[in-house]
């Protein structure tokens, strides 16, 4: 065992293995919140310098670059990450970086890029399970996806994943389990009747916490039986609207995690194919609800009733 950067991050020679989205990840450090695995790793994460001068990038964003089979992202003050061929991640830490932050960005956006490289479709959202049927809750940042998933869990549904809902075609459309926790903000915890001091922060300085799923997490993959596209509005009450027609596929693919990188990484056609299959096979509804805290429980209850009804069909 080697210690680097004082006591910032304990690095192990033998990999610690964790299961995430059906992929076994070999990490050089402990990530105690993740689910451990005994299997051989599919993906190896190494710490070290990143060389990428020779790569011809198809896309260069402000913080990220992408090419077929390669993705690079720089998180200023934290680390650089290189993801290659869906099986290797190199992490180049910044001196003095918060190790919890290094781990957090490994989950997103880095895992999102890895999933794309492995021909899995990461959608931006959470996923809950009722009677072994998966329902995706997709939406933009700050819509309330994790909060709704936590509220549904309190009512007895299982949570399969948070933040990234990973879809595979095998041959049916299935969702794979993500990390065994939800990421909830201080206010969300309070609305759910939880004390924030019972949970670990995701990184220093952020009022966002690991909310463990424990035994409530679903173990295996589950067939995707419904998609809810979430958005907030400034009215009382809520509204479900069933989507139909050609627009449906694009509305789903709009929620592809890191959509701009998909084309650059060379899997645009595949993404369209799975998006088309989703639109054809999976019912899609928009769910507009109030984000105000005195409507929070009503928003959870309405979605809960709708999912139960959908699962019985």
């Amino acid at each position: 065992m080697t210690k680097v950067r004082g006591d910032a991050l304990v690095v192990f020679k033998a990999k610690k293995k964790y299961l995430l989205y059906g992929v076994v990840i070999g990490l050089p450090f402990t990530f105690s919140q993740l689910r451990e695995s005994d299997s051989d790793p599919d993906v190896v994460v190494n710490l070290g310098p990143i060389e990428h001068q020779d790569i011809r990038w198809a896309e260069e964003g402000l913080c990220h670059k992408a090419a077929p089979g390669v993705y690079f992202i720089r998180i200023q003050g934290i680390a650089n990450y290189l993801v290659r061929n869906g099986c290797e991640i190199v992490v180049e830490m910044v001196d003095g970086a918060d190790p919890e932050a290094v781990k957090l960005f490994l989950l997103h956006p880095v895992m999102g890029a890895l999933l794309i490289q492995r021909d899995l479709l990461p959608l931006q959202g959470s996923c809950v399970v009722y009677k072994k049927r998966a329902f995706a809750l997709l939406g933009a940042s700050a819509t309330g996806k994790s909060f709704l998933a936590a509220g549904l869990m309190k009512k007895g549904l299982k949570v399969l994943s948070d933040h990234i809902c990973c879809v595979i075609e095998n041959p049916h459309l299935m969702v794979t389990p993500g990390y065994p926790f939800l990421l909830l903000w201080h206010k969300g915890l309070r609305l759910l009747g939880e004390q924030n001091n019972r949970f670990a922060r995701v990184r220093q300085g952020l009022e966002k916490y690991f909310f463990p799923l424990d035994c409530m997490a679903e173990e295996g993959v589950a067939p995707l039986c419904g998609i809810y596209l979430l958005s907030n509005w400034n009215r009382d009450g809520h509204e479900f609207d069933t989507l139909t027609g050609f627009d449906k596929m694009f509305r789903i693919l709009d929620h592809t995690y890191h959509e701009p990188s998909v084309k650059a990484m060379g899997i645009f056609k595949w993404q369209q194919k799975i998006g088309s299959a989703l639109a054809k096979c999976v019912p899609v509804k928009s769910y507009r609800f109030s984000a105000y805290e005195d409507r929070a429980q009503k928003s959870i209850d309405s979605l809960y009733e709708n999912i139960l009804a959908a699962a019985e069909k």
Partner: protein
Amino acid sequence: MGNIVWLVSYPKSGNTWFRAFLAALLDENQESPDINRLAGGPIFSSRYVFNNYTGLDSSDLLPDEIDKLRPAVYRKLSSEAATTVFIKAHDAYTYLSDGNPLFPTEATRCALYLVRNPLDIAPSFANHSTSSLDKTISSMCDAKDAFCGNPKNLHNQLRQWLLGWSGHIKSWLSAEAIPVRFIRYEDMKAKPLETFINAIQFAGLTHSLDAVANALDACAFEKLRQQEAENGFREKGLRVNAFFRKGEVGSWRETLEDRHVDQLIKTHADIMHRFGYLDGAENPVY
């Protein structure tokens, strides 16, 4: 010079009206601009725009880390724009820890800063945020005030430093790196044609007087209010009956108590004098 014209204001100072005017001006076929598709959007503090341009999840970043990246986002947006882009902003003109301004100079064509009498802002802002007058005025007098600044919650917009009403204006008065034109809401009401045409000329637009007059007619207050009543307005607060309420100059006299007026004048007297909201004897002009 960049392509962005910033439409800057402290909240409830006429920014939405100006954006409605721009929407009507830039699309002359519209009888009345759709209030849910106004020009000047998305706002500078949009989380969605930030995430899309950076490829990062802003919800995993600290507010100061986000601020460091915001100038680069809008430099890129400006470089990709084929023509002038109007972008609404409520942020004060602040500097990052590296000494560079939050509003990127190279991306900027100019800024139009809308100023409104703080006595009229207070009741409007309190209504909009369903907050008490005391609390709203306290925020307006707080030199460290921020919008979407509560770290315990994930807001749909990024944190915006407001710095109090006069602090906000002072920050923009000191923004020497970019051209800023200050436009009083009261002038927009009293002499609209002259005020709006001066504003758009400063922004580099060359529309005729007739076009400006038609746009002003299309976004008349009553038309916007009627449209909200019929179709709703996405920028309205939940418990608020309407976003477009009065918009009148001097309506604070029906709402504010003497102590509210005293507090606002005491805190902001210098800037209120400068923009003609107080006379020599420190009495409100409007």
